[in-house]
Each structure stands twice: as structure tokens, then as C-alpha cells.
């Protein structure tokens, strides 16, 4: 593109459109909001109205009691998130939104698994749990409850490993995330 300070006019052909196309990857949005009633509904309403799916959603306090942080993950492959991010920015109670770059982000999720583990199988299950650095937090005659933290992928991998043993149920928090290094999320 031509130098903006010169008097030369640019040709129209040089202009490229700032289109909002699907990005084709998973997005982690970290949204700092005022801790006021209705804020979560306003945010989820924006997604619902466009028929977008939120993959995970986690809400919690921040170091400032007047603010909360919402961490939300979305599939950018199927939905153009640019438009919805702009709409989120317009909400009066939204202070800041960051679309976290996966490479510069630490993202973690907590999951609880209830796994069938009777007799000799129990040792095998515990072995898998140890490999994944999980913890057994409840033991019953036929089942174990395992706590595990990690990235989305790690939890998915753990689930694949233990499913053959017989999984009774599972609960996941959805990811929370924070930017690496000094920069603020």
C-alpha cells in the first residue's frame, strides 16, 4: 500500500477488505465483566441469538471484587466469532475481552470422573490415573472418583483411556485461562 503521508493517491485495487471469516480454530475468550446481575444472561443471549454454540463456560471472581472473569471457549471453524466479539464489546458491563492466542496462554480445566473399578481392574485404573497425574478422591466398593486437571486435550485423552474400564459419569468445569508472561489477560 502506498505511503500514507505522501500526496500520491492509492489505486483502489490496492485495498483489501477486512472480512470476518471463520478462523478455523478453537478460541478462548477471556472476558472481564462488572459483577452485576444479568451480565451472564446478556453475554449468553448474544450467542443464543445467532445460534452459536458455546463449548465451555467458566465464571469466577477476580482479585477485584467488583469484577468477574468469564472464560468461554468457542469453535471458530464453524462460526464467525468476529461479529459476536464486537457485539460483546458493546455490552456496557463488559470491561475487556481478550481472544487468547493458544501459544501464549496457559489453559486448565478440572474434571471429575466416576469410573467402574472392581477387583483386579482397580490397579490398572489407578495406574492410568497416576500417569495423568490425577488423584483418587473417593473410593467405593465398585467405583472410584478421580480428580484430574489439565488442558482440554489432556482431559480428552484421559477420558479415552478410562472409558473402556466403564465410566459411570463425568463432570468438567470448562477451561479457565491466563496469558503467559507479564502481559495481563
Amino acid at each position: 500500500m502506498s505511503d500514507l503521508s505522501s500526496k500520491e493517491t492509492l489505486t483502489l485495487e490496492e485495498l483489501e477488505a477486512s472480512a470476518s471469516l471463520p478462523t478455523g480454530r478453537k478460541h478462548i475468550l477471556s472476558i472481564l465483566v462488572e459483577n452485576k446481575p444479568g451480565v451472564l444472561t446478556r453475554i449468553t443471549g448474544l450467542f443464543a441469538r445467532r445460534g452459536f454454540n458455546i463449548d465451555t463456560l467458566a465464571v469466577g471472581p477476580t482479585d477485584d471484587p467488583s469484577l468477574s472473569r468469564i472464560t468461554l471457549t468457542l469453535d471458530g471453524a464453524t462460526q464467525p466469532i468476529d461479529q459476536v466479539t464486537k457485539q460483546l464489546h458493546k455490552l456496557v458491563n463488559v470491561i475487556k475481552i481478550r481472544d487468547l492466542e493458544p501459544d501464549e496462554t496457559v489453559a486448565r480445566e478440572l474434571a471429575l470422573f466416576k469410573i467402574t473399578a472392581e477387583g483386579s481392574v482397580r490397579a490398572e485404573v489407578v495406574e492410568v490415573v497416576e500417569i495423568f497425574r490425577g488423584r483418587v478422591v473417593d473410593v467405593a466398593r465398585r467405583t472410584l472418583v478421580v480428580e484430574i486437571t489439565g488442558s482440554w486435550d489432556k482431559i480428552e485423552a484421559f477420558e479415552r483411556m478410562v472409558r473402556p474400564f466403564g465410566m459411570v459419569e463425568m463432570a468438567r468445569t470448562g477451561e479457565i485461562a491466563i496469558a503467559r508472561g507479564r502481559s495481563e489477560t
Partner: protein
Amino acid sequence: MRAVDAIMECLKAEGVDVVFGYPGGANLPTYDAFVDAGVKHVLVRHEAGGGHAAEGYAKASGRVGVMFATSGPGATNIVTPLTDAMMDSVPLVAFTGQVRTELLGTDGFQEADTFGITMPVVKHSFMIKSPAEIPRVVHEAFHIARTGRPGPVLIDIPQDLSREEIDYQPVTDVHLPGYQPTLEGNSKQVRLAAKALANSNRPVLYAGGGIVHGNASEELRALALEGRFPVTSTLMGLGVFPAPHRQWLGMLGMHGTRAANYAMDEADLIVAIGARFDDRVTGKLTEFAPRAKFIHIDIDPAEISKNVPAHIPIVGDAKKVLARLLDEYRALAPDPVRLANWWERIDRWRSQYPLRYEDSVDSEIKPQFLVRALYEATGNGNCILSSDVGQHQMWAAQYFDFAEPRRWINSGGLGTMGFGLPAALGAAVAQPELPSVLLTGDGSFQMNIQELATCAEYEIPVKAVIMDNGYLGMVRQWQELFWQRRYSHVDMGQWPDWVKLAEAYGATGVLLTDKATLVEDLRSALATPGPVVVDVKVTREENTYPMIAPGAAAREMVG
């Protein structure tokens, strides 16, 4: 003082000269405060009428429209005006009463989840939890409603909290950390836009309602005249550029002029200002302005590249951005001769395809003829013209020449039938020195007819002209064109008797059927004091043309 008295103080501090409203159980304390407050209140006959009246007031004046409603049905009745205001970016503050806090969520009498119901249709809303916060919230509401991209803000106040005593301190500042509209356009982008304009051979300025809200009409005109650019506008933008004018192409879109739509189709550069590329403007999106690059100026970043990707996006206030764009453009001193071919082409379209209709050979009044007659009878549009929604609205947009902004008040985005009469009422209250004329249809008019009583009671001299074809004309037209003329529930029959109805409401009623005397008859009806209803019988089956069929491209205009 009581929280409700503090609300009155806040209204005065905001410079509110009139509010529209309707009392009920949950806002009894507020209405008690009105008794001594010295705030002018117009008692409408339906909360929807109140909401639209506040809209008409806001659109005509540029100030924030204010309305009051009670809980439950009062609040649900203003959902339509709130949505309408959201779609057309109208600054409104709506106060709703709510049941006592102990009854919240119990299905109490006249309880509705107003906060929840209205959430998707407001710019912002507040649910009062503590009476002490009320003054601050009121000022925040006004600030949010009027700044940035304007819109409706709702304040829901439980009855018990509204009557509590508070220590009222005037609020002088508003601090909203999550709300900082961008006003100054990025200067690099503005310079880039000037260069693109200077290098363009087939430019079009595409002006929207944002220019009205941003009071940027003068700046738009200056830029257009400087560059000799052709100008078109959306339905909401009519009046921002004077019609008729050599550089005025007419409205664009579904019922726009061929010159405007063809110019968009062949343009190499389109400058959209305060416009949002609505489907009624673009038609088939993939074939919309296929040769053009786009400069998109809007105060709302979410509008940019929403429907059409912008090559040069500029987020900012239209008035500021256009003024700077003009300076930058002037500095480049481009030769306007480069546009000679473009103007030649546009002139050919204009002479080949002017707006036209087949006039009657007898005394029958064609609807288009009525619009021209009304234009003449108002001294070439010396009035604020409000309209409802449908064929009459489109004919008004086509045939009534608007020379100034805020002279054309209608429901664009939502297309709300019943908007017109209360809006004309609100406009009359806002600008009493200008005649407030309503052009409506026999369908739309009945949707908020009760506001005639308000006009009569307060001596608000709205002149309502009914384009009476006995049909829901636009729906009939679509059934004729796209549904094989299988007319389904569009015939409105012959009732009511409009003259008698007008008289029953304390207005003057006039029936007009003769084309030969129409202009004179309209003139004398408009000169009649007080509210007047003019029933003009027009051709029953007349279609609004030209037209781009829904989903078709501009090139495929018919009629």
C-alpha cells in the same frame, strides 16, 4: 427525599421538558411525585403509544425521549417501542414499575420479568436493587441512551424501593468503565479514505440514519459538493441531503430509484456513512455492488464488515469523521472532471428511469398523486412528516422530497405498524413550531388509533392523512406478485367510518375523494385547528414500484 422525588430532580437536571406515560399500581409512587414535580407529563392511551410518542419526540428533536409504564402488562406493552428504538437507534429512557421486592419471582399480581423480557431489545438496562443507586442510574441511563450509537435504556424499579427515603445528592459525573464509544476516526484511515475518493472515478456516498443521529448533515453536504459526489440515502437517512438536488439520486434499496441502485451496482467506491447494509438495501448480498470497494464510517464497530466487508473501516462520529475527510480530500485537490463520464451515465439513468406512475384519467386519486398533493399542500414539505408502515411509507419516501433531516419520521428497521400516530404526536410536542403531518394507511392507523384522544385532550394538532385503499396494501402486493394473487386476509373492508371516528375522539374528520380539488382540500384540512383526520380514498390495487424482489439483485429491478 423519596427516591421517586429524586427521579424528578434527575429528569430536570437532564433538561427533560416532557415525558410520556401511563400510571398503574407498581408506579403509583412515581405518579405521586409527578403531582408536585413540575415535569410535564403527557398521559397517553396505551403504553405502546407512549413509547412511540417518546420515539417521535426523540427523532424530531434529537433529545432523549422519556416514557413511564407500570409493571406487568404496562412493561410488556412497551416491548415493541423498545425494539423499534433499538433497530432505528433512537435515544429513549423507559422507566417501568415493578412489584415489591418481596413479591419478585412469585408470579405476583402484574408481575412480569421486565428486565429479562427486554434484555435483547435494549442498549442497556438497570434493575434497581437499592434506592440509593437510583439517581446515579438515571444519569447513566441518559448518558448511555444519547451517546455513541443511541438506543433505548430501561430502568426497572420495584415499587417499595421507589418510595424509600434517600439522601439525594446531585450527580455530576458518570463513570462507566465498560462504555467508551469511539468518536474520533483513526486519522490514517481517514487520510486513506480521502485518497481512495480522490482516485475513484465512479464514487457514491451512501448515507444512513446515523447522519441524522450524528447531526452530520451539513458535513455530508459539504463533502458531496466539494467532490461533486452522487448521494443516495437509506429510508432512515432521507433529508440528510436535500431533495431535489442535482447530486441527489433518491433513496436506494428495494423501493429505491433505479438511478440509485444502478449507481451502487456500477460504483467503484462506495462510502457508507451511518448505514448498515440492511437486506432491504443490498438485495442479494453476493451480487451487491460487485465492482465496488467500501469505505464504512460508523460509530458502532459491530456494524463494520457485518454484512459487507469494508476495505477502509472507520469507527467514529459521523460529524467529526466527515469534517476531517473533507479537509483531507480538499488537500489532495483532485480534478472533478474525472467524474464527468460517471455523471453522464447517472444522468442517462435518471432521464430514462424517473419515478413514474400511471395517473388516473378520471377523478380517482392515485396514492402517488396523494403524496405529491400533500407535498404541495404543505408548502413543498414545510412540515414534519411521520408515516406508518407499508405502501404509503414507501410512496412517501419516493415522492415526498425531504430537504432537511429530522423532517421524516418512520419505523425503518422493525417496520412497526401503529408507529405513526403516536410518533407524530411526539414530534408535534418536540417541535410545536412546525406542522406535524402523518401519512398513514387504513391498516396501520387502527393499530394505535386511541392516541387521537391524547391529541384531542392536549390539543396536539396532528394532521393525519389516511391513504385509504381498504387493503393491507403491501401484503396484498406481495400476495399478488409472489403468491399468485391468492389474497388471504388483506381486505380491510369499509369500516370504520373515519369521519365519525375522528369526531368521536374530539378531532375534525374530513373525507376526500376528488382528485381535482385534492391539493386545495388538503390545504384547508391542514389549516383546520386541532387534530384532524383526513380520509383520502385512493385506488384500491396499486403497486409500489420500482421494486427489487426479495433476494434479487439491484440489476433485476422491476416496474
